[in-house]
Each structure stands twice: as C-alpha cells, then as structure tokens.
C-alpha cells in the first residue's frame, strides 16, 4: 500500500463536517477583519452585513458580493488593509504595467501561515528535509519565488535561491549541491532539457528527482513530457498572489489534481456569465475566500481562472477537495449564441483526435442575427486522402466531437499545414470579429 506523507495529518484528513465547522468559524473571523477595511465597510454595511453575526452558515456566504481584480485596483493602496500598517511585514504587488497595480499585505502571522501551507504542500508531494531545493522562480514582487522559498525552509529543505534564467549556472548549482527538487515553470523545464547537450551536462550526473511546476497554465501532456524527458515526478502547484501565492492548491504523490487547502480557503465554482454556482465536475470560474489572512482578507474573490472541483475523493484520504488543472482564463471565454465556450475546450477535443494537426484557429462572426463559430484545423500529410469523401468524413467527425463538448455545432474547415498560426508561441488562435460585422 502506498505510504502517504502528511505534515498536519489530522487537519489534512479532517472529516468533512468538522472541516465545515472550522471554515464557518474562520469565515466569521475573516468577515470581522474585512469589516475593518474601508473597502468592505463601504460595500457590506449598506447590505446590512455589519458584523460576523450576519453569517450563520457557510451557505450565507452566497449573500456577500464577489470581490474582483477591479475592486483591488479601486482599493489601492490601503483600502483593503485590515490591520494597522505597523503590523504588516511584507507586501506583494502586481507590476501594474497595464493600469493601477494591486497589492496584498501580510502580517508576520500571515507569512507564517503561508509558509506552513507551502511546507504542508511540499511534504504532500513527497519532499523531505533531506532534499536540496533549487528555486528557479522569480523572487521579488511576484510571489512564486519567495512563497516556495519560505515554505521549503519551513519544511527544513536546503534551499538554493537561484532565481530564474541563466541555465548554465542552474546546471552548475544542480551538480555542485546535488539538487533533488526544483521549482520552475513547465516551459523552463523543457527549455533546460533542450540545453543539456549544449551545456555538456549528463543527465546521469544530476540528482533531480522531482519538479514543482507552476506559474503558467499547462496541459497534462506537457507534464508527462517533462516527466518522461527528465525521468522525474512533476507536481502541479496552483496559486495566485491575491490568495498569497503558490500553495493554494498542491498535488499529493498521486499527482491527480491539486488539493485545495480548504482550511485556509473556501472554494466555489461559478458560471462566469450568470454568476450562479456550479456543481462539482462542471467547469467555471474559481472563486476563493481567504480564511486565515489577517492583513488583507478577501471574500469571494473571482480569480478569473477556469477550473472545476473534482467530484471523486483522492486515494490519499485528504478531505480537502481537488481542483482540475487550470483550463484557461475567463477573459478568454466566448459567449456564442448564449452558450459559454472556452477555447481550451475546443483545443482539448482537437488534441485528443489523432486525425488533426497541432494547429488550429477559432473564428467567431455574425451570420445574420446569430453567431457563427468556425474552427479551422489542419490536414496533416498522414490523414490526407485523395478522396474528398474521406476528408469530409474527418471534418464531420471533428464537428461531432466538438458539438459533444461545447454543445454548439461549429463549421469545421480543413486547411493546409502552415497556413494556421503555430501551436506554440503567441499566435492569435481566437478571432472574434462580431463587433465589426454587426
């Protein structure tokens, strides 16, 4: 039987009713902290929510409005600060290159709670204090570097604060100090592997056994690819600066979706269009409430990340539910004839079909009063047939599979390879020309 490591075993295996009790009591604390901020006082008191007593059950959370990224901008810089400034010890901020930045403050206890959560996460992923941890994430205002750094130290790992880039130096550090666990973006893991030869580094001379990856959405295929290339285990880490940073959800050694730490956050999935809650299994926008943060409490924060709550329990026994890999951003969502369609759903269907090449393009336009969705795909040399009927059959199969996934029937076009934007890179794969064609 698999031996699952736990750092806070009782809390990680807490029965659901006790977890909900804990959440309710912490939610009340969060609400009372929020009511110390200018932002939430202005928003909640007119709604009659003027004390934690306004909440009697977890269901009452639904009566509190959402908090958005825009709200964080409005509240900048001190509108969401719930403690006197002298109690804060750190802030993390978005760069704000596109408008007002956002800021999250932390007290000493906030940093400790966050570090504990990351330490718990790392241990769930099978890391121990005997590991040498090379942190290749950016340090600074971005939370990825410092978040894992503090958590790894808390666990007792030997931390190498390498920061990102400079691949040759990364290899040297890995060799010199026998690094066993790294933290990097998935694309950097692939990049480093490509550079092994050029750097004249032999994989066998490295001791790496695990990688924690985060910072950018990636597919299960990419994870498998990194695992196979390096011969290591790759763990999916989810977090966002508004919720501290990394460590909001983390995979255990089952590597089958990250556990969202429900003693520290309340998780909801909503339809980003209607804002109605969605049941487990359905994909929608992830909404999170902080349960432990003192300095900057956030209630029902709309992350704009698309995910779903996995309905089945994990074999590890943790009662903290798992979420699916992030499937994209709500900003990417298309509403086509009233139906929410995520480009990632279309990509998933196409990638699953061996008949289709890697490249595709999605075009939405007006056709009379209705929206028309066209999915352009590639005819690879492998599937090209001299017979137009075969090609039409492939097109029909793509259309049917897409319809089964997104509930609307697209027009499917077949194109020559090389015509559509390349799969990797910043190519624009979604073109919405509805406004122009009205």
């Amino acid at each position, binding site marked *: 039987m698999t031996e699952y490591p736990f750092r806070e075993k009782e809390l990680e295996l807490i029965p659901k009713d006790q977890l909900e009790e804990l959440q309710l009591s912490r939610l009340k604390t969060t609400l009372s902290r929020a009511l110390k901020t200018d932002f939430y006082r202005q928003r909640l008191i007119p709604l009659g929510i003027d004390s934690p007593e306004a909440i009697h059950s977890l269901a009452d959370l639904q009566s509190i409005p959402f908090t958005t990224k825009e709200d964080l901008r409005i509240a900048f810089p001190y509108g969401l600060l719930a403690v006197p400034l002298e109690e804060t010890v750190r802030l993390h901020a978005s760069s704000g290159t596109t408008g007002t930045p956002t800021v999250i403050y932390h007290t000493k206890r906030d940093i400790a709670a966050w570090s504990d959560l990351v330490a718990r996460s790392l241990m769930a992923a099978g890391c121990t204090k005997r590991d040498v941890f090379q942190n290749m994430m950016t340090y600074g205002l971005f939370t990825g570097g410092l978040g894992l750094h503090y958590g790894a130290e808390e666990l007792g790992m030997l931390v190498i604060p390498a920061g990102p880039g400079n691949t040759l130096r990364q290899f040297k550090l890995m060799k010199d100090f026998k690094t066993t666990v790294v933290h990097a973006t998935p694309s950097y893991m692939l990049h480093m592997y490509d550079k092994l030869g050029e750097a004249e580094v032999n994989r066998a001379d490295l001791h790496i056994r695990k990688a924690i990856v985060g910072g950018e959405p990636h597919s299960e295929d990419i994870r498998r690819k990194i695992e196979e290339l390096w011969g290591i285990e790759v763990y999916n880490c989810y977090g966002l600066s508004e919720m501290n940073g990394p460590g909001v959800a983390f995979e255990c050694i089952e590597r089958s979706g990250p556990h969202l730490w429900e003693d520290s956050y309340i998780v909801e999935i909503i339809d980003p269009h209607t804002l109605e809650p969605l049941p487990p299994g359905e994909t929608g926008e992830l909404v999170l409430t902080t349960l432990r943060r003192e300095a900057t409490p956030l209630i029902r924060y709309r992350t704009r990340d698309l995910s779903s709550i996995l309905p089945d329990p994990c074999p590890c026994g943790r009662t903290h539910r798992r979420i699916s890999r992030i499937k994209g951003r709500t900003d990417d969502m298309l509403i086509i004839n009233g139906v929410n369609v995520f480009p990632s759903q279309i990509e998933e269907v196409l990638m699953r079909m061996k008949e289709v090449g890697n490249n595709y393009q999605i075009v939405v336009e007006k056709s009379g009063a209705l929206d028309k969705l066209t999915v352009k795909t590639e005819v690879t*040399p492998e599937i*090209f*047939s*001299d017979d137009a009927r075969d090609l039409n059959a492939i097109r029909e199969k793509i259309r049917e599979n897409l319809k089964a996934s997104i509930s609307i029937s697209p027009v499917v076009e*077949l*194109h*020559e390879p090389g*015509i559509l934007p390349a799969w990797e890179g910043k190519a624009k794969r979604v073109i919405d020309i509805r406004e122009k064609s009205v």
Partner: protein
Amino acid sequence: MIIKQISIFLENVAGRLAEVTKLLAKHEINLRAMTIADTADFGILRIVVDQPDKALKVLRDGGFTAKTTEVLAVEVEDRPGGLAKVMEIFQQNHVNIEYLYVSLEKNKDKAVVIFKVEDLKLGQKIVEEHGLGGKVSL
C-alpha cells in the same frame, strides 16, 4: 495499365494552384494530366506527371500536403462512342468508377483516359483482358 497519380490538398486561396505549377516547372517535371475536385473550402488537385516520385518529393519539400494514388490509364478510341465502349465494358464487369479525367497523351487516334476505380486489381484485369491499356506511356 496502372500508373501513379499525385493528389495535392489545395488551400482555397488565390494563387495556390499557380504555386504548384511553378514548382513543377522549376524542377522540369512535365504535366501529362490534371483535374481538380472542388469543395467549398478546399480542393484536391490530381496530376499525372512524367516523374511521379521526384514530383512527390518536390511538392512535399515545398510544403504541400501530397500523396500518390494508383490509377488506371486506359486507351480510348478518339471517335464517337469510344468512351461509351469502355464504360460498357467496365459496367458489365462491375468495375466501379470513382472519377475519371482525360490526359494530354495521344496514341494515334486514341485518347488516354485516367480512371480511379474502386477495385484497382479488378480494373486492371478487365483493361488487360480487353486490350485497353497496353501501349500507354505517360
């Protein structure tokens, strides 16, 4: 006789066909027959050339999606009823035709017609039995 035909997936954009002919010309490949099957958003160009293996490589290297298909080249008398006679033979012997087109090749008073048939072996057998394809040299 059985010959190699090259089929090319053609994007429905202006100038794409010209790119094919230009590429073949550059490599001195001679076109002997061609036809286009057209749908709303793509076409399938079918050609018969003097050097099919070289043409396939040149086209693929040039970024085209192409493949070879085996077809029947059949001699048809160039006079009223010539094709009708061949069609009758095919019909009687259950040789189902998917498509056909005419080549530039001409042996005296006979035209060469390219047939894509459902059952190539059967087609070839019938062609041979009826002396329809012996002298074709494409």
